[in-house]
């Protein structure tokens, strides 16, 4: 098994120690480009984790330890990445809407977005509309990703979309929503796109930013 497959496996298995050792080996060998190691090693492993969650072979504990392994390996790569950083596909402002603090889903999608090559501005949880809008403007973001677990806070999503329209920046953004509470119908009502899991989100954004049909 080559190092890229091994490091992907370490992520899938949530083996932080092994992922870090392999990352160090990759750095020391100076044969594999680190962006390649991130894309075809760490990211590929995390994409597989997403698939396994979709099939309910993995659950949140397995995703969390896989993400830990990925971040530990990334920390090894980080000092050597200075000039090698890939160009971001797009900038995504992300957060859990006002009234909700359940951020596991948001943290998961953040991991998947970052590892897929998106710059992610994380606004945190229980975030009000004005904070989202401030961050979108500040970073000139192309995507807004909103999440909520609870139905009571769906109204906060609607409020954000209304404000975006009022501010005249709605048309410039792709707005994706997720979490346990929203669905496709609600998304259509407020003018957003509902994506059921991290893989669907990556697939959608990758297609959109590569000029394909979404």
């Amino acid at each position, binding site marked *: 098994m080559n190092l890229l497959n091994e490091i992907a496996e370490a992520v899938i298995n*949530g083996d932080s120690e092994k992922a870090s050792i392999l990352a160090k080996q990759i750095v020391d060998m100076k044969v594999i480009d680190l962006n390649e190691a991130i894309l075809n090693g760490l990211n590929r492993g995390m994409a597989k984790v997403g698939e396994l969650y979709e099939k309910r072979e993995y659950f949140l504990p*397995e995703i969390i*330890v896989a993400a830990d392994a990925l971040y530990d390996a990334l920390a090894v790569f980080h000092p050597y990445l200075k000039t090698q950083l890939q160009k971001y596909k797009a900038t995504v402002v992300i957060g859990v809407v006002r009234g909700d603090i359940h951020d*596991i889903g948001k943290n998961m999608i953040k991991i998947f977005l970052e590892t897929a090559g998106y710059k992610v501005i994380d606004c945190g949880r*229980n975030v009000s509309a004005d904070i989202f809008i401030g961050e979108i403007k500040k970073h000139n973001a192309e995507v807004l990703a909103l999440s909520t677990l609870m*139905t*009571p806070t769906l109204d906060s999503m609607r409020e954000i979309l209304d404000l975006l329209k009022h501010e005249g920046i709605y048309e410039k953004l792709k707005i994706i929503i997720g979490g346990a509470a929203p669905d496709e119908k609600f998304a259509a009502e407020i003018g957003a796109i509902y994506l059921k899991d991290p893989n669907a989100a990556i697939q959608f954004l990758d297609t959109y930013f590569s000029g394909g049909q979404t």
Partner: protein
Amino acid sequence: MELFEKVPEILEGILGKPGATVPTFPIILGYSINEYHKHTGIPAPEIMKDGRKIAEAQIYVARRFKIPFVITIIDLNVIGEAFGATLTYMQDVIPVHEIPAIKTLEDIDTLQPKDPHRDGRMPEIIKTAGIFGQKFSGQGELSFGGCEGPITAAGSVWGVENLMRNMIKNPDLVHKVLAACTDTIIDFCNTQIDAGVLGIGLAEPTASSTCISPQFFQEFAVPYLKKITRNVNSPAFLLHVCGESQNIVKLVSKIPNILIFSVDQIDLRAAKGQIGKKFLILLGNVSTGIMRRGTPVEVEVAAKACLSEGATGGKFILSTGCDIAPGTQPKNIETLIRIGKTYGKFP
């Protein structure tokens, strides 16, 4: 069963007796706080920290819609807050969890069960149970006490990510936290029973198959749920698991004294097959999204689908998959109840 003596029509509906109707009511926890806040102008934090006002809020909504069931559970951070978790109190809705109680691994070594008469909002919830026992105990009225289940409580105490990470990395620590939460839950629920409620409900969304595998449910939830149902002096328990729960139906059906399983994302027909001849009542599962945003016609379609899938043979209560959202239109609540009465008749 003694529990249902005051509500014979519910018992007959559950047993599927000819001419009886499927018992029908939505879950009205956070909804009741928001409605009572709008009705009285009292800020939600004031209601949430006052056991009397919590009781008044639920009874206000129950009487308005002729709902026969109230329960002391409103939010799922009562145990967490008693252990020292920080919540943010919102002006119009229930509080949200902000910072876990456990900050370092050393905190786990010193973790002790909390006192229901002293810690957090538990003394207030006990007051709620007492008021239910006095004011919601007439003919046709059923009052339950309760709190969050052990996994959900442990998530509030330690933080859900930490809890889940350590289910894999350090299960012994997880068991320590679960043990302290479970002992607190047992004392808290027994005190509520003593105060006057008829049964106990446990809300355990963090143990759903949306979050953890059925194997982890077996390992981390079942032993503690069993300990609770064996040590709390309640004739029966309601277990609420919102999220996916199809793959844990059989496991739940084997936990002694769980009488009602409140379900959300599940195929009711398949679940009834999984339960077989065991006496486990399913309660559910009209989507709270449809209740909040749908039209009465959409609520009607969803409620009829639940009746079609779940009511045959009894052991079914038509309800919502979870707590209905603040802002849910009264006409949708009325539609749900009307559909149960009109189309839930047993031949």
